[in-house]
């Protein structure tokens, strides 16, 4: 694990070193960091601050400003429920609630066992399929509440098959 982490930091460093200029690069670096680590914990923030020669408070300030960045680790299975207006008027809130009930967790958190994250997402722009969700990158459109248990089962089965 220790060794792994080192490799990840090295990957981030080589990206930062390859930038033509460090000026204004913070957001691109944070994107890369999230790509590499999956989330941006304190240690990574401090590391980025060092490398870019800016205060850690600035890194934290920028990171928390943007909803795309996260400081907590996401679950093994990631459910994103589109909460754009088109999905909302077609019942996305009910879909989100059903996931909360069936997985016994709150939206916009990761379940304690680390198996699931359920998030309400900004519009993904597939309004023709409203309400739409993605589970581990796979889309499910024109959903009704009763589809949720099947999707959960399918996701677990797919993981098991792997």
């Amino acid at each position, binding site marked *: 694990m220790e060794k792994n982490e080192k490799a990840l930091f090295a990957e981030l460093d080589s990206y930062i070193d390859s930038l033509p200029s460090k*000026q*204004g*690069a*913070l*957001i*691109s670096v*944070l*994107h890369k960091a999230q790509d590499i680590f999956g989330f941006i914990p304190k240690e990574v923030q401090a590391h980025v601050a060092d490398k870019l020669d800016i205060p850690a408070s600035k890194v934290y*300030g*920028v990171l928390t*400003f*943007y*909803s*795309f*960045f996260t400081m907590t680790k996401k679950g093994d299975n990631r459910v994103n429920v589109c*909460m*754009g*207006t*088109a*999905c*909302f*008027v*077609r019942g996305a809130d*009910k879909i989100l*609630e*059903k996931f909360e*009930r069936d997985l016994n967790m709150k939206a916009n958190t990761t379940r304690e066992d680390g198996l699931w994250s359920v998030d309400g*997402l*900004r*519009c*993904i*722009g*597939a*309004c*023709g*399929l*409203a309400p*739409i969700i993605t589970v581990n990158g796979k*889309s499910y*459109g024109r959903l009704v*509440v009763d589809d949720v248990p099947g999707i959960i089962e399918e996701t677990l089965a797919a993981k098991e098959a792997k």
Partner: protein
Amino acid sequence: MHKTRLQILICGGTGCISSGCLEVEDALVAALEKHGIRDEATILKVGCFGFCEQGPIVKIYPDNTFYVRVEAKDCEELVTEHLLKGKHVDRLLFKSPITGELCHHHMDMAFYKTQLRIALMHCGMVDPENIEDYFGVGGYEALAIALNDMTQQEIIDTVKASGLRGRGGAGFPTGNKWQFGLDNKSDKKYIICNADEGDPGAFMDRSIMEGDPHAVLEAMAIAGRAIGADEGVVYIRAEYPLAVNRLNTAIAQAKKYGMLGENIMGSGFNFDVHVHLGAGAFVCGEETALINSLEGQRGEPRLRPPFPAQKGYWQQPTVNCNVETYACIPLILTKGPDWFKQFGTEKSPGTKVFALAGKINNVGLIEVPMGTTLREIIYEIGGGIPNGKKFKAIQTGGPSGGCISEKDLDVGVDFDTLTAIGSMMGSGGMIVMDEDDCMVNIAKFYLEFTVEESCGKCTPCRIGNTRMYEILDRISKGLGKPEDLVELKELGQIIKDSSLCGLGNTAPNPVLSTLEHFMDEYEAHVLHKKCPAGACKDLVEYKITEKCIACGICAKVCPVDCIHPTGEETKNGKKKYVIDQDACIKCGACLPKCPPKIGAIIVE
């Protein structure tokens, strides 16, 4: 362009990919190979056809047949029937919901009849990942004209003469913006393309970038030439991975073919474009916030003046336009400003792309001349409201816009008319709502969005909108007081007047417009503690009437086990079911389970 006998166009936009167009492509290839005609057909994944509701869409040339909701399992039949025998596969044709007729061509459909494509002209026509396709439809001709035959001022005068106004929402005349960019002298200037399409329920810009990325790049280079900039940046949402990929591919190809880079077409003009990913902040659609974000800062708006055309990106003169605005530019140069001005209204020439969604039959991406009425958009292009429900409102302009009621449906849509009726054009999101949508709840939904997205820089927006949200929340829970309605109006006006940027200036619009047009619903919540649409959970009760036949299906689906057979006896001696109101979480799961012919469960 493509010399094979047959061309098969598959919509490769995000919407159609979500509904499975990639599987359709694989299945088509397999079927073509199986029948030994793979080399007779070219398969092209093109940009959005617009009719997202019916995706994945497959179009077959030369006879221009439009197939809808095609699945992988249909491909064998498409190949054997259509391609080999020349017969239409009727079950995959669009059937008019009104006349029941089958439509072979897209122009037979009411959805397309009144549309006019300028910004979307090449979407669904060219392969966005192949620059030669774009050359084939006259691509980069406008840039050649701009570089060889026109002075900087002539380019700007042409854009001015076209009357083009910024499609991002505010409607500022594009030519004037470019003029400021030219007039402010500096060695270094920038062109920015605002592709931070943050409105929930809007996907116009994404579709243009996915379907016709070269048009945007070409226009940015023209803008660069016009003001004397040599660098362009596309600021795009990270949530649009496909658009990002296609743009990057397009930039690499344009460089390879000498359409971007140094000494473009031998003119001595240099122009380079790169893509910058946003990180999920709605306020970054505001141009000065966007510039801060580009510089790696929190996306907080700057004070204006100085305007970006004076001191923008890295304090240099910067011209920033929206994706759709750029997409109109090449045609204005090649066809002339008078051609462009013949469409639309006097003060808002041209067309506008809208993302039509919500409670509407034909969800999709549409482009219509300015001045088209909302009624035409909803009932002709949109095909009306599904499931026989009644129209209630159409929301334009996203969280910055307002809700428009039935009485204003005959207004022709342009920048000025929409503002006059308390909404705004915005970037072009249009969400249709029906009788089941509660307008208080909708206003609350939008305000929750703005409260979350407010950058926090100025007090009226940060605190004022939070207070408005709290009041709305109270009202939706049945705790509202009559004076709340007065306070909402006052507070809304103060926030509009005193916020620094466009986000705060427009945030109260959804509340103010619903107060204006749907006061009766607010009154029902406040005075009678009722939600007429049955959407505000705290104000509704699910009840089982005497029609109950004690089948017990509802009790089986209740997640909190609050439905029990404790009522009177039915004819066959069983006890009727009753909902325990204290335990009920109002999830509504029982409602659709009660057999329609019984209909014992009601919402009050």
